[in-house]
């Protein structure tokens, strides 16, 4: 099993958010989690990425034969986990290019791979940016600073394509995107998809799943998965909403 979440319960500030959640993802699979506002989708994404604000009450997560709770935030990233943020943080003064260069090399170092030099990295970045329709000038700017909502999401996908993760978690990547941007972003995701990596896509709407075809769709309500199946569930939700699952 690539990612195995067993009976996970999590709380924050005395409020239980995840309640006995179970989820298994195999290598090469695309999973989608759909659920109403406040059901715990983003909490799950943050807990997987290692955000320290949450208290783990119960459960286990295994990722690539590691106990995920033994790894800190950066070790999870270096092991191949990537979270595309719902609200990417603006960091003025931190230039995108050296930041991403440093990020890719920290991963390569952990994998005992040779670090990528400045020139090769610049070429890689330029080509990936071009694939995503990102203007080269944007690469001279500070991380997410002054970006529009769509630019921020596109930039998250650029980071994902550079870091080439084993498990990418996309937290409502479709929110704030117009239809053209949605196409570019989803094409970027589809290009990255191989039989060796997996995706966990968190979304409210079926629209995103028209462009990225999931192998499994899960419905999340009150912090646990209440139904799992194929794409037909997404269509069902689009038609009837989440009411009947609650």
């Amino acid at each position: 099993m690539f990612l195995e979440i067993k009976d996970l319960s999590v709380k924050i500030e005395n409020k239980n958010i995840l309640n006995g959640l179970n989820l298994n993802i195999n290598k090469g699979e695309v999973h989608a989690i759909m659920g109403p506002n406040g059901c715990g989708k983003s909490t799950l994404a943050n807990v997987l990425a290692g955000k320290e604000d949450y208290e783990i009450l119960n459960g286990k997560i295994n990722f690539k034969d590691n106990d995920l709770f033994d790894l800190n935030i950066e070790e999870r990233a270096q092991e191949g986990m990537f979270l595309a943020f719902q609200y990417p943080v603006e960091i003025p003064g931190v230039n995108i290019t050296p930041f991403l260069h440093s990020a890719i090399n920290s991963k390569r170092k952990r994998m005992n791979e040779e670090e990528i030099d400045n020139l090769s990295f610049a070429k890689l970045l330029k080509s990936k940016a071009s694939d995503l329709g990102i203007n080269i000038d944007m690469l001279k700017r500070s991380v997410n600073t002054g970006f529009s909502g769509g630019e921020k999401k596109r930039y998250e996908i650029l980071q994902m394509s550079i870091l080439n993760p084993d498990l990418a978690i996309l937290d409502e990547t479709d929110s704030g995107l117009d239809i053209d941007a949605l196409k570019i972003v989803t094409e970027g995701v589809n290009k990255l998809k191989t039989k060796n990596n997996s995706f966990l896509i968190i979304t409210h709407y079926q629209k995103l799943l028209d462009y990225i075809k999931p192998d499994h769709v899960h419905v999340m309500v009150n912090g646990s998965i209440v139904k799992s199946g194929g794409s037909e569930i997404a269509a069902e939700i689009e038609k009837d909403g989440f009411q009947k699952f609650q």
Partner: protein
Amino acid sequence: MNIQDNYLKNKENIFFSQNKDIKNHREKLINIFKNDKFDRKNNESLKNINLKNFIDFNYKYLIPEETSVINNNQENIYSILSVNGQCSSFKDEKIEITKILKEDYNDFSKNNTIEKNDHFVNLNSLFLNSGFKIVIKKNNNIKIKISNIVTDDDLTIFQKNSIICEEGSSLSLVDEYENKNNSTSNIFNVIKLEKNSQLNHFLIQDNSSNHNLITTSHSTCKKDSTYIQKVYNFSEGYVRNFHYSELIEINSEADLQGIFFLKDNNTSNNKTFVKHLAEDCKSNQVYKGILNDRSKATYFSNTYVDQVAQKTEGYQLSKGVLLSDNASYFSKPELKIYADDVKCSHGSTIGPIDENAIFYLRSRGMSKIAATKILISSFINEELSSIDDDQMSQIIQKKLVRYLSKVK
């Protein structure tokens, strides 16, 4: 030893002690010390400081054996070695350097902008034992680097410098303070900018923990002149940076910037006071502090806009990053505006490093310490990237790396 006894015992070594007017002025100052009840609540020169340590001191001064001025005419660069606050006289067609004169002292003592209850300024006048005057002659464009050296332990340097930029001149002045001995430097710079002149004044402060540095400066800008002050304080010892600025003629400008990097139990006190006294003048103040461990800082910023100073632009900004729960930064920006056609603003933000930004960077594989350091660097990136002198930029970067190496 109390102030009066200290003065009487050492007055033979103090500049201008035979001059009647100066003697009278000093007697008044002694009375201020005798009568002042040291109003710690309202007196900004007393915040975060134990004045007693600076009043009860053993006066000790050594006249330096060697000082120097070296000029490189080809590049218009002059290097000055200021030893115990003194510097050799020098003259060429571009600059003139002399000892400080009693006229300069009188000129200063009549100034009303500097608060009469600034005890460090008063101590400077009372025990004045060194200083020099630099005149940049009309229409010249030069660079000066001053290395300020204190030769021995236990010295008390009370230094007053006068810097005059004549009409149309331009000066880039780098003042370096890197003292490693147990001593105190109390330095007052009186700066005058004549019409259409410019002074870019950089102060690099990097003293060891046993050296106290008290710097105060006062600039006066005439028509179309600009005074730019940039302070980089990496000192491990106490530093005070106070600047008083007067924009007295149309279209003059004061641009004041300070960055301080504190750790351990260190303290830094900062103050700016800008007076807009003519139309169409601009002032900009940006002060940023990074505070670790149990360090403390204050920043008092005042902008006064006189009723005649229409079309004024005056901005104040202070920001602080606290790297420890035990560090503290007190910031108080103030605007007093008596003209009605002005653009003025002030702002202040102080807080710990942004945890969400740390999480974001770590989620891309950066270690916590690397993320913290990159965010500290980014906090002052704008100010550091605006340094257009490569050599100085490298010096500051090197000191920043040293400071960051101690951040855990």
